[in-house]
């Protein structure tokens, strides 16, 4: 177990550098002069511009910029300061990226946790019902509704939900966060809906497959009653792909958060990324997305390690 965890951590290192490098390279390609854009129409002296460019290392070659950003190359008077020193950079007004993330993270976190809980509980329950009552009305209902939910893009369904349940019927607050917990209800349900459908179908497929396994026949032959066969034997084995899926889906969740936060006007991390991109705050974009990628990779590592708990058949070497 220890060796497996160590190996997985080692595998994470090149992925981490590759991903941050890719993102940094992409932002570096943004055309235009971000420092000049900072002042808009106002005229600024060439000296001021040069000083700002120097401060943000914009005159360095690309690889040096990346090195300074990551904290491998000393940056003038600041010395080594970068991702490895816990410094994800700052925006052009001098605010730390970590501070921006700290301020914008709570709404997104509430949204994401709510969505994961909703999609896991309802998704797995619906999948179990569909698998047990295979080819029944409930099975068809789950199949048809999940297909529909998957097909309608999130931004369409969220807009329609906002229009119908928020504006027309008035059951939910329309946008913003002024209504406390209720403000989160509709955005959470919409964000959960995309992955909920996949969770339900994956649970169903996986349970149907495992239901044919020899150990299930053995369990039945031993005289175990159905709830125990399903709960203890089929379900436990069927949840492994579902758990993996939930990890991979964190990425979708982050993308979905941008859409939901935009539509429902929630000042979370997704909106922060989007605003930063539009204002050419390259440092903020890379900083926030890098932090999100780290979170995403760590979550998947934890999930990898969880397999052993769920499935003792997996030997870690």
């Amino acid at each position, binding site marked *: 177990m220890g060796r497996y965890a160590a190996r997985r951590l080692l595998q994470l290192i090149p992925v981490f550098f590759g991903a941050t490098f890719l993102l940094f390279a992409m932002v570096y390609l943004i055309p235009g002069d971000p420092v000049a854009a900072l002042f808009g129409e106002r005229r600024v002296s060439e000296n001021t511009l040069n000083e700002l460019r120097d401060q943000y290392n914009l005159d360095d070659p690309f690889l040096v910029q990346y090195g300074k950003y990551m904290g491998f190359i000393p940056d003038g008077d600041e010395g080594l300061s970068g991702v490895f020193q816990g410094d994800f950079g700052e925006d052009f007004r001098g605010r730390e990226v970590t501070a921006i993330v700290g301020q914008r993270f709570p709404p997104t976190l509430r949204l994401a946790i709510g969505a994961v809980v909703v999609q896991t509980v309802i998704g797995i329950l619906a999948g179990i019902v569909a698998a047990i009552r295979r080819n029944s009305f409930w099975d068809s209902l789950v199949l048809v509704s999940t297909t529909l939910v998957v097909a309608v893009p999130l931004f369409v369904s969220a807009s329609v939900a906002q229009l119908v349940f928020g504006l027309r019927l008035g059951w939910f607050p329309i946008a913003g966060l002024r209504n406390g917990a209720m403000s989160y209800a509709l955005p959470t349900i919409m964000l959960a809906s995309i992955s909920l459908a996949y969770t339900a179908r994956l649970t169903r497929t996986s349970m149907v497959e495992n239901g044919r396994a020899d150990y299930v026949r053995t369990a039945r032959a031993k005289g175990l009653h159905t709830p125990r066969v399903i709960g203890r034997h089929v379900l436990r084995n069927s949840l492994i792909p579902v758990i993996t899926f939930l990890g991979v889906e964190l990425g979708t969740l982050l993308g979905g958060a*941008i859409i939901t936060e935009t539509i429902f006007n929630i000042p979370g991390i997704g909106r922060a990324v989007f605003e930063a991109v539009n204002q050419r705050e390259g440092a903020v974009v890379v900083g926030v997305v890098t932090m999100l990628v780290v979170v995403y990779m760590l979550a998947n590592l934890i999930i990898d390690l969880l397999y052993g708990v769920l499935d003792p058949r997996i030997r870690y070497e």
Partner: protein
Amino acid sequence: MSDPGTGVVQQGTGSEASAGAATGGADVGLPGREASLWSDAWRQLRRNPLFVVSALIIIVFAVMAAYPQVFTSFYPGTADPKSCSLSNTVGRPSASAWFGYDVQGCDYYANVIYGARVSMIIGLATAVFSGMIAIVLGSLAGYYGGMLDTIISRITDIFFAIPTILGAIVILNAIGERGLFQVTLVLVTLGWMTMLRLMRSSTIERRDADFVDAARALGANTPRVIARHILPNALAPVIVYGTIFIGVAISVEASLSFLGAGLQLPAISWGLMINGSFTRILQAPHLLFFPGLFLSVLVLAFIVLGDALRDALDPRLR
């Protein structure tokens, strides 16, 4: 590398496509009739109403994309999406303007019809190019294994670590001008990994199969073994996922355009139309409804088609 019993887990796609990919294509056919995996699948598909309906819907949208005039020729309203009159702004749907008018007073039916083109082009191009990358690199990684496999797999991991929408927003904003080509390029860049993993694992499954050994024993060289014997048998999961991926790509393009990070006006895209509907949503819900409906039906058709293909190509379900 591979723990037995975790084929699905290892691919890490989480999608159902990986579940469908897991086992081999044992072609059990009666002697005397042609019974390859593909001809069997075709025989089964023709009898599947879901396949027939979704294929028909896709054909209709394909015609709409290629010849939008076909759909506007019999239309009583303004057939030109660019001929607008501000006096018609947010007009309701009526007998002379089936889908009403948008904020600029442009005929909405004509706009929605012409919007099919970018969705179809981006969806198909993204799936085809991602599929080509995946098939070439995936079969090489799976067939040769070793160092080549390690390098390709680690590069795949790196791209996989970047969430699609987030990454697409970052790259698209780095590219100043965002047209069909740029959006497709970005979607391909962030979209080939799942198919590559499917291709790689299904190549590994067939690499050591008896029929491959037989072909080699008969003197076939490596390119021939890969192209003639492994590929046709290993392709099924990639084709299933690729079909669904067309729908996914269409959906992602519309989402990006909706967020303002994808195509830009004056391009005609359903995502842009829905974005534009937001200012007048209360007076004119039809501005959200019609492009949303067309978009959803098209995405749905590709997903259902992919599901039907999986049922036909997955021998375990027979």
